């Protein structure tokens, strides 16, 4: 088109606008922004794209997001269908249609086949949507992780790292506690095997229609200012365990009292009867204006609920293979490769670890850890003893990644055969290390556990993060672990927050060992427990370590803990390693004045 022609057209449009005054609902700049965001959303299916959502004449939560998309992508030539609950007669649908038609000057229709744009709240039309059509879904809550995580930053991190184990745990909990998934509409889906997405809330019935669809779906949340999309031919799968069937809404024997359909989404009406939620489809069935065969194929009949298949979900049991796997899994030691390709002795090697807290007003620089070096081999336990403020916990936190070291190296045999310095990894890679390579047991169980979910769920979190996707395998493995740490199995589905301190610590230990890590860090594992409870946990730890070829670091202020668990030990004082030796030798024959004081305190 030539410049002159464009100018002509602009003049003509402006003239037309003046002749028939259409309400301006949104300025062109805003529309352009929505289109740009929509394109970005199409480019990264399922990813929430933030955009400068404008205020609309309808309130936030009433379709202001969907309205912006329809106004931005639509034009005079479009034919728009607007439905709410599948019904174009609902007041909200009427109001939106009035606005859209008025603002765009476009045609309206109730017929899905004629529509170029379908704006909908809560439903996808029963009729198959086709190539070239766009479905705009209004979204009340765009963050699928909201129900498991309230922090926006944390949700962002989980999406960025595709770290969705918490959603799987939520599913696990529902199955373990209720024997079934209780999520109704708003069932989370994975889009293109990458992003977790909240499907507006359409009912589960409609979810299979998003999978490899011919049409484009754009979802928009005006209040939260997010747009996301499912482009045509994109895989969309409900989050479901491999061995637990996905279920859609279906009541056996129900049928629409108007059109007689059995294979549509039916909503209950007075007197125990049902009606099609999709009013258009219902009417067309009655006028024999539908392709019933195609629709029957489209209806998600393979997902009809089957109570019989749910029976075994709550059972708890430990299989012998699982029990054996616990010790067999620990049998493979892992050591690093040296520069010359020879096997080294260690699984974890710390060199020159230094942590300096810079001085601030009224306080001078604090060296919390100075040039700390050690390595630990498989089936060996190293103790780090010191009082609070000695720097032992700082060393531990730097290794874990809870704090950033000022200098030094940490190498793990489980990370590129020990050739990579852990400190060079970004935070996300360091978090991944914690899934299967480097496990931690904290003094405070609430740091290592989610107190709001069950003991089994906590272990499921680690297993699902490691990629486990079979409910029964997860449950059986979790039961075996809990049995091993002597947590009564009838408490497996109880919320950990209701457990005693000792029991919580046992659950934390079971979780730490769930993925057979090759390195285990124990940070004051029994501090804070009653003496008799602490003794029990210590004995358990001693047995567990003896069974495994795991490399262990135990940090404690308590000499008796280090004596019970370790072969070798280091004594730290004011950030320095002041003495090293065999643990019993340090206790029986301490050389440094500081160590002698510690021992004297421990003996008294």
């Amino acid at each position, binding site marked *: 088109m030539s410049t002159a022609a464009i100018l002509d057209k602009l003049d003509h449009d402006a003239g037309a606008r003046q002749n028939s005054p259409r309400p301006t609902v949104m300025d062109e700049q805003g529309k352009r922004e929505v289109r740009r965001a929509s394109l970005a959303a199409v480019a990264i299916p399922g990813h929430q794209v933030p955009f*400068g959502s404008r205020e609309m004449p309808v309130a936030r939560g009433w379709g202001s997001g969907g309205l912006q998309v329809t106004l931005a992508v639509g034009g005079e030539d479009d034919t728009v269908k607007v439905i709410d609950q599948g019904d174009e007669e609902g007041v909200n649908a*009427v109001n939106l249609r009035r606005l859209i038609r008025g603002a765009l000057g476009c045609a309206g229709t109730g*017929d899905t086949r004629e529509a170029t744009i379908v704006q909908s709240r809560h439903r996808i039309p029963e009729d198959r949507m086709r190539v070239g059509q766009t479905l705009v879904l209004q979204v009340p809550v765009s963050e699928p992780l909201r129900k498991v995580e309230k922090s*926006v930053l944390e949700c962002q991190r989980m999406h960025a790292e595709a770290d969705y184990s918490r959603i799987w745990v939520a599913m696990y909990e529902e199955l373990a506690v209720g024997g079934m998934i209780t999520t109704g509409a708003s069932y989370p889906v994975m889009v293109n095997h990458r992003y977790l997405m909240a499907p507006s809330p359409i009912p589960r019935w409609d979810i299979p229609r998003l999978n490899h669809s011919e049409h484009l779906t754009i979802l928009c949340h005006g209040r939260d200012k997010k747009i996301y999309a499912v482009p045509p031919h994109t895989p969309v799968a409900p989050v479901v365990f491999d061995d637990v069937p996905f279920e859609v809404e279906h009541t056996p024997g129900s049928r629409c009292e108007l059109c007689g359909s059995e294979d549509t989404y039916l909503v209950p009406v007075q007197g125990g009867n049902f009606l099609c939620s999709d009013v258009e489809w219902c009417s067309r069935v009655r006028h024999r204006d539908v392709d019933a065969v195609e629709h029957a194929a489209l209806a998600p009949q393979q997902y009809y609920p089957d109570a019989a298949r749910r029976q075994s979900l709550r059972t708890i049991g430990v299989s012998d293979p699982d029990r054996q796997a616990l010790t067999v899994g620990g049998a493979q030691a892992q050591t690093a490769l040296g520069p010359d390709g020879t096997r080294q002795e260690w699984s974890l090697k710390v060199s020159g670890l230094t942590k300096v807290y810079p001085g601030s007003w009224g306080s001078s620089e604090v060296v919390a850890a100075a040039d700390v070096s050690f390595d630990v081999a498989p089936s060996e336990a190293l103790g780090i003893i010191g009082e609070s403020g000695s720097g032992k916990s700082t060393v531990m936190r730097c290794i874990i990644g809870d704090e950033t070291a000022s200098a030094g190296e940490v190498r793990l045999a489980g990370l590129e055969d020990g050739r990579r310095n852990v400190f060079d990894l970004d935070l996300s890679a360091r978090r991944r290390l914690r899934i299967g390579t480097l496990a931690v047991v904290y003094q405070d169980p609430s740091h290592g556990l989610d107190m709001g979910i069950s003991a089994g769920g906590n272990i499921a979190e680690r297993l699902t993060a490691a990629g486990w996707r079979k409910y029964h395998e997860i449950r059986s493995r979790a039961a075996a672990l809990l049995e091993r740490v002597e947590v009564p199995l009838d408490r497996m589905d109880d919320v950990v927050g209701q457990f005693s301190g000792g029991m919580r610590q046992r659950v934390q230990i079971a979780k730490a060992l769930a993925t057979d890590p090759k390195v285990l860090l124990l940070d004051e594992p029994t501090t804070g427990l009653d003496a008799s409870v602490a003794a029990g946990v210590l004995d358990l730890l001693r047995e567990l370590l003896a069974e495994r070829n795991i490399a262990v670091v135990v940090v404690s202020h308590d000499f008796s803990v280090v004596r019970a668990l370790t072969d070798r030990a280091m004594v730290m004082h004011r950030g320095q390693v002041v003495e090293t030796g065999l643990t019993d030798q340090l206790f029986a024959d301490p050389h440094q004045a500081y160590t002698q004081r510690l021992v004297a305190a421990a003996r008294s």
Partner: protein
Amino acid sequence: MSYAGGNRGGTEAIVAAEALRAEQRTVHQRTLSVEAVLGALPEAVDRVMGEAGLWDEETAAVAFLQAAGDSAEAVHLLRAHRSTLTRFAFSEPIEPDAIVLDRRICSAHRSPDGPQLLGSTVDYSPRLLRRSGEPDPLPPNDELLAAMASAEARTSAEHPDRTPQRFTRYLAENNLLSPHSESGVDASGLEDPEPYDLALQPVRLPASRSALLSAMALAETGALVGMWYRSITGPDGYTDETVTVGEVRHGEVDLSVRHPHTGEALVIGQVRMTECEAIDHLNDRGEDPGKFTAGYGLALGHNERKAISMAALDSAAHRIRGTALGDEMEQSIMLTLDGLAANGFLEHLKMPHYVTFRSMMERAEAAQAVAVPPVSTEDDTREDYAE
């Protein structure tokens, strides 16, 4: 044959609802003029303009009238109206020190530079209902008159016609202001070269200081005050009650834009605004107790509650930046204070939800159908796992 939708039911209901609402208005918009609203209810109009983020007193008064005095509804009308407008230009930063003062309070100093200008306020007036035609229920007595006379004699000195020094400058001159407050730079290290415009951009976390200020300036006034108060008495503890008000100002400033061709800044009009500086002593662990920090608040029109709570929260947000509590606070400021979002989402609950509710109901029925077996702890349940 194509399907012809009905939708008459919905349309009729909506038209009827609109008609009923018009009928119930005993005093119609036309009899209560925009001028009357502006003259009698300026505080309400100011508040609506501030929360809407749109300075146009006449339009705001129209919205207020149309909304029957429901400020949330009026804000909605103005915001939706704003979306219809094309942005022709972005204004230059205003010069707050060029303000034409209407009122100026400095609580932090007995005799600050420039006057303590009480201006128009009910701060020190007894809140006694006074019906039309009734006499003053608390007329000045002899004692009060005498006090006023002597005060007048004492303070008759005229103040020079210039904007008084702001209290943060006074602190800076005495080397008592933290470098952050002096430079105004966002201490989080986030790039913040241009003010973040929430009318055009989505909320992003972490948010720059200008984004936090922008969210608070647009906030629903009650929500903002509530958040500030909650942080004092509630479980969050973002700030404490030791904040001191360095400046509260209300007045008029020029607004200018650059001419698209000449590049010169041209004054296109004036806005009224309320400004606040909240002073905090940096006496927490790790801070420099030799300094004060200042939080900043600015609201369109006359809205002191918003400006003060905003300034106190700005200071707190800066002080706890980067901590877990700071992250929480940022999320609260950016995502919970917008009245349009909160009210809209609340009211959407009135819409039909029977499709999603049906989905839940089906699950409830399914749950009843699941014959929940007693939890078995026996070892030999391996048959259950055979598949």
